[in-house]
């Protein structure tokens, strides 16, 4: 268990999450891909903290990442609910007009 | 009194002890049920053993297109969550793992129960079981926040998330004396995450047993034993975090922990017969509009006391 190996694992997790976020059609599945990417960020941040500079205040970064995940989740659920309510659909392909 | 960690080899003993306490609670419940039915209370005492023997002999039933791995996870999970809870709870001077985040650990384990109950409901591919699983999640959203803030109170008072410190801080004065609201809410939370008593709507008889509907034999035993074990583990935690753990005169510390655990457990079992089952969709209003502010006020009182003490 060295910094390099942990980062490799995190990179694998990130890539899997990215694949899901790009390829999935259902909004909630896209969210799961994003969550997986943030999961990788948590692992990498923990490894950086432990292997490079285990100072007391370095842990705060992880706390911020976890917060970001929670916010992403809450907003994602709200958007998915609204989308489903207004269009009876939860597919990203049917909501492309939202990006214009 | 300081708490020391014992070797890993004691884990099986802890598991046996937890199951024994859970069985004692089930026996008390059986005795009360027998008395309520007009039979002598001694007739109800062997109920847990008879039920165990019956279920172990019963043939396993399965449903069409059941999701077996998920159902098995949910059914075994309850017992495992209860065992993982008691890992951090000290028995007098001994503990299996005096984690520096013991209270958060306990909280994380009671959140695992969310997943396990829902999985036990989803797995059998049956309407009644699934509705039971959904009922539990609806109820979990209501009870979890008050439970979390109730858990915060002893942590703030002890200035530590370590259960050993929480016990040591209660030398002389138990936390229940100056945080009774947190204690009461915590006990209600214990009943709620054990899917038990007033919070048993997820396994209610009007739902043909809810999450229990399709389970039989060993599967059913695991869920039932898991619920009692969760109740016992929660009571042990309440005895430790609020009732002073091993502190007490005359008796040895480990016996005090057991006596207090048994007292909380007996209180919960006795109260169960006096309380109706709460409808899950009605729980959220009182839980968030009444109980949550009360617990926050309790937390404020505790914080002010701690700050004032310096």
């Amino acid at each position: 268990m060295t910094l390099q190996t942990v980062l490799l694992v995190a990179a694998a997790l990130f890539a899997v999450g990215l694949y899901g976020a790009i390829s999935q059609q259902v909004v909630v599945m896209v969210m799961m891909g994003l969550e997986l990417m943030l999961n990788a960020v948590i692992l990498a941040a923990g490894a950086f903290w432990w292997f490079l500079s285990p100072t007391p205040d370095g842990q705060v970064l992880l706390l911020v990442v976890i917060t970001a995940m929670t916010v992403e989740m809450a907003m994602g659920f709200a958007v998915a609910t609204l989308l489903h309510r207004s269009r009876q659909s939860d597919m990203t392909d049917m909501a492309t007009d939202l990006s214009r | 009194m300081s708490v020391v960690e014992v070797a890993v080899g004691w884990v099986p003993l802890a598991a046996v002890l937890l199951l024994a306490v859970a069985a004692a609670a089930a026996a008390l419940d059986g005795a009360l049920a027998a008395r309520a039915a007009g039979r002598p209370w001694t007739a109800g005492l062997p109920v847990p053993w008879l039920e165990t023997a019956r279920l172990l002999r019963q043939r396993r039933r399965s449903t069409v297109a059941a999701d077996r791995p998920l159902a098995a996870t949910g059914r075994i999970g309850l017992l495992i969550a209860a065992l993982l809870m008691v890992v951090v709870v000290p028995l007098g001077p001994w503990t299996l793992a005096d984690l520096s985040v013991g209270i958060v650990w306990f909280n994380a384990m009671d959140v695992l129960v969310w997943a396990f109950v829902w999985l036990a409901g989803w797995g059998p591919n049956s309407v009644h079981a699934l509705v039971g699983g959904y009922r539990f999640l609806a109820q979990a959203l209501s009870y979890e926040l008050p439970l979390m803030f109730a858990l915060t109170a002893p942590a703030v008072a002890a200035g530590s998330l370590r259960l050993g410190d929480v016990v040591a801080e209660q030398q002389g004065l138990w936390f229940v004396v100056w945080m009774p609201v947190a204690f009461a809410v915590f006990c209600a939370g214990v009943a709620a995450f054990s899917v038990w008593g007033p919070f048993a709507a997820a396994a209610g008889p009007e739902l043909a047993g809810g999450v229990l509907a399709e389970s039989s034999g060993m599967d059913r035993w695991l869920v039932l034993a898991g619920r009692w074990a969760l109740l016992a583990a929660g009571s042990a935690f309440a005895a430790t975090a609020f009732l002073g753990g091993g502190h007490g005169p005359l008796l040895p510390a480990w016996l005090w922990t057991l006596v207090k655990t048994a007292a909380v457990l007996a209180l919960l079992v006795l109260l169960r017969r006096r309380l109706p089952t709460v409808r899950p969709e009605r729980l959220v209003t009182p839980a968030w509009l009444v109980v949550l502010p009360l617990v926050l006020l309790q937390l404020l009182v505790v914080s002010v006391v701690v700050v004032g003490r310096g």
Partner: protein
Amino acid sequence: MLDDVVFWVLAAVAVAAGIAVFRVDSMARATYALAVSFVAVGLALLLFDLPYLGVVVVLMMVMEMAIMAIYMIMFMGMNPALMPMSMVHGKRAALAVSSLTFGLLAAGALFVPWPSRRAAPAGDLVTSLGQAVMGSKMLVMMTVSAVLFATIVAALVLALPRGRYDRLGEDLQGDDLPGDDQEHRR
């Protein structure tokens, strides 16, 4: 040595469960596969002496995934376990992009000359985290908690089908209990 074994097991579980999220054809299994991945990463954080953050990751993510499963089942509207179907677009491009990303990140992980460790971990890391949060970073954490609460409220407002005036009437003195109003809806 034991740490290494535990880490590799957890890493294998985390990545395998992550892949399973997009491979299994049951919404419940996909969601709980993600939960397993998070639990593995949370336990791996325990190896880095981050007990609080590790346990909090387990706590929060299991909770989130329990709710996530409900959303998945609610919105998908059909059971892919019964009707196998592909719910993906641009699969090949996505595979290429993610493989490239993995290659880049892995090269970075292996070839960047990481500096050596600068400090030793403090004695009680949970306390030091609290010090870090409540000390100089008070402002950050205050903002974070405010953002969190604003998010909760905003999400509720967005998701609420009807406001309290609809439920309780003009005078907010509604006599119907929540849960009893299903038949009055719309």
